[in-house]
């Protein structure tokens, strides 16, 4: 079979089509807020929150919830709110708070899984939660719909609040002075990023989510000079990398998450080079 026929063969299965659809949507959503998070010096929030989601997942498994989402999503949203809120003037500063929460949740999650798990393949479970593995290929119809709906909501929120998000990211003090509800806006950003991370766990696993959030934004920032262009470019770059990554992983039998991230890295290097050649300083 040529690679074209192989792809055609795989795409005759609905679960492969679902995986591509969900992967592209998640990549799109996660790249949008990436620009804001990178600029607010919150690049690691994705990492921290995904570890929280991992811990929450372990707790959900231990207490035997059938639908883990009901617990994981609120727990992650809560942590996101706490993290972004303490960002400015807390005793534990932003980066330290994230680091603490991140490794703490990871350790406790693994500990709980070890102590209480009834699974016969514990390391397999842990590995697939951390790196995504094949979870994306086992999506049910409901999960796909849930993902589509949440993605549409995220996109709509982003479009509606685009100007406010810009103002708050660029200059919080000024935005506050002209009467923008900065705290509400930060809260919104926190909630949206938490939702995206819980969604993205299925795709790339909790260890690699940060890559989906920050790489497209950083790539676009190498080349483009306006917020709008950076945002659009990050979205396109992220979607292309995710689609390409999923196709490559199908053809080559490589793990989905890490393939996508590898392609994101390659894209970043390409953009960095293009930025250098285009005379972009730094």
């Amino acid at each position, binding site marked *: 079979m040529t690679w074209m026929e192989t792809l055609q063969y795989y795409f005759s299965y609905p679960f492969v089509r679902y995986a591509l659809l969900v992967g592209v949507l998640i990549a799109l959503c996660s790249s949008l807020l990436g620009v804001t998070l990178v600029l*607010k010096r919150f690049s690691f929030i994705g990492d921290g929150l995904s570890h929280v989601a991992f811990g929450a997942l372990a707790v959900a498994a231990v207490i035997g919830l059938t639908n883990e989402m009901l617990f994981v999503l609120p727990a992650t949203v809560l942590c996101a709110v706490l993290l972004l809120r303490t960002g400015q003037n807390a005793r534990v500063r932003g980066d330290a708070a994230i680091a603490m929460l991140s490794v703490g949740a990871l350790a406790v999650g693994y500990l709980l899984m070890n102590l209480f798990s009834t699974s016969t393949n514990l390391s397999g479970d842990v590995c697939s939660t951390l790196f995504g593995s094949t979870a994306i290929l086992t999506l049910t119809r409901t999960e796909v719909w849930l993902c589509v709906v949440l993605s549409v909501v995220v996109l709509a929120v982003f479009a509606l609040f685009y100007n406010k998000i810009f103002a708050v990211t660029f*200059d919080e003090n*000024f935005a506050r002075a002209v009467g923008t509800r900065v705290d509400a806006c930060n809260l919104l950003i926190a909630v949206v990023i938490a939702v995206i991370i819980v969604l993205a766990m299925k795709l790339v696993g909790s260890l690699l989510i940060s890559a989906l959030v920050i790489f497209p934004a950083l790539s676009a920032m190498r080349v483009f000079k306006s917020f709008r262009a950076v945002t659009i470019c990050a979205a396109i770059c992220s979607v292309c990398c995710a689609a390409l990554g999923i196709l490559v992983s199908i053809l080559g039998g490589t793990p989905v998450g890490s393939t996508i991230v590898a392609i994101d890295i390659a894209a970043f290097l390409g953009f960095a080079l293009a930025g250098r050649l285009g005379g972009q300083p730094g």
Partner: protein
Amino acid sequence: MPQLVCQNLTLGYDGQILVNNLNFQVNAGDYLCIVGENGAGKSTLMRTLLGLRPPIAGEIVVGDGLRRGEIGYLPQQTDVQRDFPASVREIVRSGCQGRAGAFYSRADRQRAEDAMARMDIAPLARRCYRELSGGQQQRVLLARALCAAQKLLLLDEPTAGLDPHATAEFYALIESLNRSGVTILMVSHDVSAAVRYASHILHIGAALFFGTKADYLASAAGRRWLGAEGGAAR
């Protein structure tokens, strides 16, 4: 009716009082410089005027057609802004944020174009903010402040980090804005510039002073402060 009256204002935070019983008023077209030692409460006063923090006691009354929240603010630059990918136009438009809903109206856009023209940065509209010189960046932020408010501007240490040439240019720009009727409130370290351009001086510190420039130059606080400045220069 003055644009802004502060009556018996007590300022501070975390239970610590910085300024007690502060009284001053600003009329349309005034150029008021707020000077004082570090930590005397200049920034706290500014944040209170902007409505970002409530005063401990006393009140701020606005009048003469000025509404609360109609103060154009020029904050100090933050680290985030130094490598922020944003075009000049995007930043100036964000000054309309207070009035705008989800999107900017045609009037908002026009206001942004007018503000850029007024600040002489229309040709830079598509340029990236981080690639501009310090003086140009201040003009962008001034244009943004003008989008937010036309009558009164509050400037926070606007010349910090500017080279002497850009500083002189900036003061000239502010002076021309002031002459066109914009009220200026400027927090400054630069006392020599303050007494050169301002019409009124507010000195915050151990001794409070508020009055015209001439009165300030004759006052004890003014003489001591300017004397110290002169001494430092020598």
